[in-house]
């Protein structure tokens, strides 16, 4: 154990879930209740530890608080790799978020996956995930970050394909992993660029290297973008966003944990960590990617009917927000949104899970296996039937739509403020502002669309309604917790002003100056100033757009004043595009994957059928042919005409040509003479 209690705690936090993973993998099936209690126990302890860390952080209330501990992983005199932990406020908050949501998932799943074939496996993988996610959080260097990064990918792969009998699940899992790998390649190239110039991996050394200019200029930009590509993969930013919606094939609690709250946020977390090495150019790219993704994903979410798909796209869009914040320099706001979003988005997913659960049972009763339990068009009027789910979901929805008194409002506002100030500094990038506010409005719209379609009105199959029941405690409990945590107060303390941008969070997480040697890069202070000034205008605007969105959907789906169908018709092609996610998967298939597979076939064909069969075996064949010919020449002596010719000149046709067949002595003798002559000639030359 090290001398530092925080490090000890984080070590425990890191490895407890791993232990549960190992136990469950090897002995899970044999344990009572398939050993879910192992996982739950582990995660609860983890949670306790992170809470205690969190509390002590609050007690210390020290912005610059940070502990680091590392050990030498590889040490070949010159080539060294140090791995280690970095514990600062960001880490602690992140740890809390992860272990909180994770433990919620553990609890929620006890009922949601009751009696599942691979129940213990499921808990094992949850353990693996928590382990690797905490690894990402605690890493103090790029290498271990990368390692846990991929491990997270694996656990998501395993959990998405939990029901691998469904081809769609298997496909989704593969897709998720490969899409992430694309990002990871960028990540690794970034690492290599940094290592080849700075010669180190730990954040601090890398920043030092950036500061003393041993890496800079284009190289640094590319390094930054490379790393960011990794973030894009994990946080499913455009154009690598395709995997997240499909990942919904996994069990809903998993979607809540990984594909809403934590794992996908890893990209954002990483960008926050390495923010100080982004060059202005890099940041611009980041900002645009984020902004565009936010708007783009939201525009898809509008038209989706699968309740989880809606949430998935909203997740993508929210992540876009966070990335946008990083890009505009207000990366603290981004991180803030990460935290709040984790809470309410997880909550939303659990709610959807609870709804689906209810639907499932109802349909099961009806022996109805045609109706899709996730399609919102089959829902409606659940409000009365499942009050808890309804209220919690409403709260979460209000939060995500950025309504005051709720956490989402604070963080979103901070981001928009950041964007606004950025745009005021660089008017040429006004598009980012459009993205930000536009997305805000659309979000509000489709989230309420979801609420109305699910809980209000009535389902197209009325008889369903009477079989819809509230979910069991184990499932509602997490809802309540997370809904509660979506209230503003938890983030503004010690202040209680619901619209101020102050609070422990802002106090403890202070932005860092960029280390990049660049004249027109804004200092952290400047950014903060800008954000502060943009605070109220941004708030006003955001309230306005949120209100618009909510109102619109109220008209459309509650009052039914406006017919959604009519609008759909009006915006024909737009609607199609959105409904079909802009045909991204199709095009990737058509222009990326298929060509590669074709190429592979071609290469294999060349390798096997052409190169080997003709070129390599060609040697054999040629040898064989030559040997055949020589064999003939040699054994059958020289060609008949020669002998024949000699015979004729000799005027001796006696026995005629027939007899001059091969194998004749004279041919040999003639050949000897020929040989002699040849050598003579050879010599005289």
């Amino acid at each position: 154990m090290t001398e530092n209690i925080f490090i000890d705690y984080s070590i425990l936090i890191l490895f407890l879930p791993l232990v549960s993973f190992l136990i469950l993998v090897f002995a899970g099936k044999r344990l009572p209740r398939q050993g879910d209690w192992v996982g739950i126990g582990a995660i609860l302890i983890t949670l306790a530890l992170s809470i205690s860390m969190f509390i002590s952080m609050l007690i210390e209330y020290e912005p610059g608080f940070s502990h680091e501990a590392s050990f030498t992983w590889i040490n070949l005199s010159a080539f060294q790799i140090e791995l280690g932990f970095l514990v600062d406020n960001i880490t602690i908050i992140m740890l809390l978020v992860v272990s909180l949501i994770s433990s919620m998932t553990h609890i929620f799943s006890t009922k949601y996956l009751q009696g599942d074939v691979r129940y213990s496996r499921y808990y094992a993988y949850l353990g693996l995930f928590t382990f690797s996610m905490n690894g990402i959080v605690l890493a103090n260097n790029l290498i271990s970050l990368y390692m846990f990064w991929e491990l997270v990918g694996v656990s998501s792969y395993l959990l998405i394909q939990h029901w691998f009998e469904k081809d769609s699940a298997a496909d989704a899992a593969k897709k998720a992993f490969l899409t992430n790998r694309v990002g990871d390649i960028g990540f690794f190239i970034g690492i290599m660029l940094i290592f080849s110039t700075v010669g180190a991996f730990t954040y601090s050394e890398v920043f030092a290297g950036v500061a003393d200019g041993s890496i800079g200029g284009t190289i640094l930009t590319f390094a930054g973008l490379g790393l960011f590509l990794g973030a894009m993969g994990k946080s499913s930013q455009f154009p690598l966003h395709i995997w997240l919606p499909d990942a919904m094939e996994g069990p809903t609690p998993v979607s809540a944990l990984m594909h809403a709250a934590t794992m996908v946020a890893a990209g954002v977390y990483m960008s926050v960590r390495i923010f100080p090495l982004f060059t202005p150019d890099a940041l611009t790219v980041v900002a645009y990617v984020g902004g565009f993704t936010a708007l783009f994903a939201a525009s898809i979410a509008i038209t989706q009917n699968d309740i989880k798909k809606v949430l998935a796209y909203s997740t993508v869009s929210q992540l876009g927000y966070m990335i946008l914040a990083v890009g505009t320099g207000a990366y603290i706001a981004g991180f803030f949104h990460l935290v709040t979003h984790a809470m309410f988005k997880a909550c939303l997913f659990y709610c959807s899970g609870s709804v689906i659960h209810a639907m499932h049972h109802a349909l099961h009763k009806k022996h109805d296996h045609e109706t899709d339990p996730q399609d919102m068009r089959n829902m409606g009027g659940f409000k009365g039937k499942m009050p808890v789910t309804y209220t919690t979901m409403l709260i979460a929805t209000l939060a995500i739509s950025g309504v005051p008194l709720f956490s989402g409002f604070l963080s979103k506002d901070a981001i928009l403020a950041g964007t606004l100030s950025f745009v005021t500094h660089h008017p040429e990038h006004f598009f980012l502002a459009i993205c930000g506010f536009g997305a805000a409005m659309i979000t509000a719209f489709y989230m309420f669309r979801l609420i109305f379609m699910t809980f209000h009105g009535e389902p197209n199959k009325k008889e369903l309604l009477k079989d819809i029941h509230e979910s069991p405690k184990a499932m509602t409990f997490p809802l309540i917790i997370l809904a509660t945590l979506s209230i503003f107060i938890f983030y503004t303390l010690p202040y209680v002003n619901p619209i101020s941008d102050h609070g422990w969070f802002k106090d403890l997480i202070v932005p860092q100056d960029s280390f990049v040697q660049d004249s027109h890069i804004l200092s952290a202070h400047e950014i903060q100033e800008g954000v502060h000034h943009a605070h109220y205008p941004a708030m006003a605007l955001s309230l306005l757009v949120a209100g618009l969105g909510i109102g619109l959907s109220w008209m459309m789906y509650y009052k039914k004043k406006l017919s959604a169908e009519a609008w759909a018709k009006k915006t024909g092609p737009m609607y199609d595009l959105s409904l079909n996610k802009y045909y991204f998967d199709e095009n990737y298939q058509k222009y990326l994957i298929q060509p590669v597979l074709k190429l592979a076939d071609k290469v294999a064909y060349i390798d096997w059928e052409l190169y080997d069969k003709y070129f390599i075996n060609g040697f054999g064949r040629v040898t064989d042919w030559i040997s055949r010919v020589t064999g003939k020449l040699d054994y059958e002596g020289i060609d008949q005409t020669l002998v024949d010719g000699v015979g004729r000149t000799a005027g001796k046709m006696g026995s005629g040509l027939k007899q001059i067949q091969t194998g004749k002595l004279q041919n040999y003798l003639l050949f000897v003479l020929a040989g002699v002559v040849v050598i003579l000639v050879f010599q005289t030359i």
Partner: protein
Amino acid sequence: MSNLQSLYYYWPELILTVTILAGIIADLFYAPKDSGKTMYWILGGLILTAFALKLAADSPVATLFMGSIALDPFAWFFKMLIIAATVIVMLMSSKSTELLNYRVGEYYVLMGIMVFGMFLMVSSIDMIMVYLAIEIVSIMSFVLAGYLKHDLSSNEASLKYVIYGAFSSGIMLYGFSILFGLTGTTKLFEIGPALAAMDSSGNFAIMLSAVFILAGFGYKISAVPFHFWTPDVYQGSPTPITAYLSVAPKAAGFAVLIRFFSAVFGSNNSVMAGLVPVSDVLPWPHILAVVAVITMTLGNLVAIQQESVKRMLAYSSIAHAGYMLMGLPMMSSEGIGAVMLYLVMYLFMNLGAFFIVMYVQTKKDGETFDAFSGLGWEMPLVGIAMTVFMFSLTGIPPTAGFIGKYYLFAAVIKAGPTFYWLAFAGAINSVISLYYYIRVIRHMYLIGERSESIHVPAMMTSILILALAIPTVVLGVYWTPVADWVSNSLVFAFPAM
């Protein structure tokens, strides 16, 4: 040294002569069916001769019979080699079924005479002697090749052999005559200087004679393009004789070739000084190199096509002649040494291979590849031995064949970049040769179902097989004795002038 003095050092050969006569006489008293017993006489005589040679090993390096016979370790080496080969072949013959229905007394006697002839070949330093020796050996082998009187192919073999042999020895003789005319002497060591002293007017004559003579020797060692008799004769003759022809006379041929060319066309004071072209119109090294490459390549290529293992081995023996020729161009001690060492290794592996072919002939009455199918399972000993021989002939360590090849390559490489291409040719050729050697193994093990019944050859046969197989492996791991023997034998006799 005068003739009478010479006789004193000549008694191994005298013993041999007595043996032969004894054999002839003894054979008179045997009934046809057991005239095979003559073998023991000859065998005994040969062993006596070997002992005699061993005792005479430390006799001075000298020339006998007024400078027409050399008495030197070089000759001694080859004599031993020849005796070894002969003994083995005689034992083989005693197991051969081809000879069953013939009276084999003379057969062994003829072999004895052939040994005598080869003794002369390896030690003669006078053109007359060379010619006589070669003729003795040839005539004996004509008869032996055609020994199966009622077997057509054997007849044909002998006819081809006789005409071919007579023809090429005639050509050689003509070459001799020209050489004699140019120098007025028949003593090899007088010819050399005489030629060296000549002006370039006689170049063409020299060239002509040289080539004619080469034809004569080439025929003995079956080097391309003087090899055409080989396949037919080898296939037609009784297998033991084929084995014999592929080893002993070839060795003798190399001996005389080395001696003749180094004495006549080399600088006269030392063989080791290398072949100095008597004039720039005679690029000896390159001619020999080219001949070597052509020989090995052709031998290998044609061998691939063969369906009969015996015939395949015939061609492969041509290829091996090619390998050995690689050692001559630089006429360095390494080169000659390599050839000698190779001959030792070759003795075991080639005789072994032929012996197994003979054995398979008797058991499966066939010598084609198909006859070998599944052999490895049916006769494990034979299979393993044959595998060893094949790998050794291919030249894969740890077998004798590899060591032999190794020495040859080493000699070539040592001579410097000029001859690297020769080494490459040799290397590629040994890859090609794998093609057909492995084919035997393939038939023995991979093709043909494995029989559960195991056939173990007779005691004597097994011993003989092992006696050939074990050295083939052992010499591949530890060959120092041979190497030393060879290096000690690189001493040539020169007449005191």
